[in-house]
């Protein structure tokens, strides 16, 4: 069971963590970490493993969040059906734009996904009749079999299970033939092609998959918070997600988790610096890029490997 050692450690941490959390405020922070971690996992599949980029992932997150708000409120859908509906809609949108978008590479691909994210954010902000406009809207509580989820402590277990499952699934995927083809097209697109990998299809598939992931987490996070604003789909949220991937480590599953935990905690820790927090945050990111360009987890793993 050596393969699953990391997973057991994560499970143990998640199991014991509530003992160390003094109040609802800390629960809330950990839950936000876990939400980010799962979105970042999906994004890392696209960025770190397949070598593509998306600067519009908050847009997909936003669609999920608003689906959880709009479909139950205005159309009477069950929140779980709304979550699935939102994710399918997101997947359909991602599939629709994937073909033209992945004709582009590098900076151009970044620009295109950036544009897509901004368009989604604008639509959410401007379609006030449905979305409540810039003020946002309330999200009805998520219940199951007459049992309503309530309070940070219950939600903690939902997100902990979700994170554990996602880490397990992503590790499986990366090790599977599909994942090998993905990593290969990052390593050498032409080499992947000549052994039979339909490169365009694989890029599209992982883009759709990671958008689906983001949408589900958007819905869950809206259900948890109980309120959505257009900020969830904001460009800065997309950048935050990309930064988490890079800081934690491209093509590293546990790097995604570490990146999300660190960058969710950092603004909290810096809050005491008042006006200087953004500056300090930026400076820390720059230091990361200069001294740990491959990201935290891969760099440290390589260092431990060498010193043995």
């Amino acid at each position, binding site marked *: 069971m050596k393969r699953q050692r990391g997973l057991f450690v994560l499970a143990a941490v998640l199991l014991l963590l509530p003992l160390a959390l003094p109040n609802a405020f800390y629960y809330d922070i950990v839950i936000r970490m876990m939400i980010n971690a799962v979105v970042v996992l999906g994004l890392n599949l696209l960025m770190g493993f397949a070598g593509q980029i998306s600067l519009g992932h908050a847009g997909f997150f936003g669609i999920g969040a608003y689906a959880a708000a709009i479909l139950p409120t205005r159309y009477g859908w069950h929140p779980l059906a709304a979550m699935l509906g939102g994710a399918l809609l997101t997947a359909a949108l991602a599939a629709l734009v994937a073909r033209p978008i992945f004709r582009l590479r590098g900076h151009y691909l970044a620009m295109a996904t950036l544009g897509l994210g901004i368009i989604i954010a604008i639509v959410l902000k401007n379609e006030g009749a449905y979305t409540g406009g810039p003020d946002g809207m309330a999200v009805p509580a998520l219940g199951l079999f007459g049992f309503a989820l309530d309070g940070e402590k219950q939600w903690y277990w939902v997100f902990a299970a979700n994170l554990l499952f996602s880490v397990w*699934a992503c590790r*499986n*995927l990366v*090790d*599977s*033939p*599909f*994942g*090998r*083809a993905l*990593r*290969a097209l*990052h*390593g*050498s697109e*032409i*080499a*992947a*092609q*000549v*052994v*039979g*990998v*339909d*490169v365009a299809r694989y890029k599209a*598939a992982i883009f759709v*998959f990671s958008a689906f992931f983001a949408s589900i987490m958007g819905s869950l996070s809206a259900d948890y918070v109980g309120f959505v604003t257009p900020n969830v789909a904001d460009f800065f949220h997309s950048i935050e997600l990309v930064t988490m991937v890079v800081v934690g480590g491209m*093509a590293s599953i546990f790097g995604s988790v570490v990146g999300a935990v660190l960058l969710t905690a950092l603004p909290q820790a810096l809050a005491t610096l008042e006006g200087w927090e953004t500056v300090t945050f930026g400076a820390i990111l720059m230091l990361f890029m200069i001294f740990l360009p491959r990201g935290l987890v891969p760099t440290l793993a390589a260092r431990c490997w060498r010193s043995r």
Partner: protein
Amino acid sequence: MALLEVSALSKAFGGVMAVQDVAFSVDAGVVYSVIGPNGAGKTTLFNLITGVYTPSGGDIRLDGEAIAGVAPHRLAQKGVARTFQNLQVCMNLTALENVMLGAHLALDRNLLKGLFRAPGLTRADAALRDRAAELMRYVGLDAYRASAASAMPYGALKRLEIARALAVQPRILFLDEPAAGLNPKETTEIDALVRKIADSGITVVLVEHDMKMVMNISDRILVLDYGKKLAEGSAREVRRNPAVIAAYLGKAA
């Protein structure tokens, strides 16, 4: 009937005719070499046949089926495999994974099954791992079975590409300068490996600058110069052809 038939094949890059009206055919089971001075269009010819470039004109047939302009990943399904002159190894994978990648089409690539670690898929992958290790032994890379591709020397990576191409289980294998950059001893080993592959029943098409190797192992040789076919025949015939000598050594005054 020939396994590969190329007729009137041309490729223009802007005003430059990189390949012009080239025709030849390769019988099953032979070692067929393409030679010519630098810039003669050898690699372009390879890229045309293996789908990397789309021809400007002409016809390519594999076992009678027209394959001109077919995408590389579809050609792999039809049993076409190749290596590259400038290495195309996935440095982010292990050596073994690079070889396993070659068997991509033989595996279940379903995303959901991968996600949930479907038992059938894991079993097939474990079997492939053994077969890939066997292929690495076949090309003489036994020592690198546990290596990351990025930790291997140049000569070993050249063989790794061959192992990956063999994992495709090709009918026809295109090797683009397999001996380029290798020392004489390594070249002799590649020479033996190519012969071994051809003897196993795989048709080999070879671009190579090492004339000793070409003359040794080729059943037939095609000579290109300035994108055009200069000569074709057995090693003996080609060596005596005055046009070939002129292209390589320059004309006598």
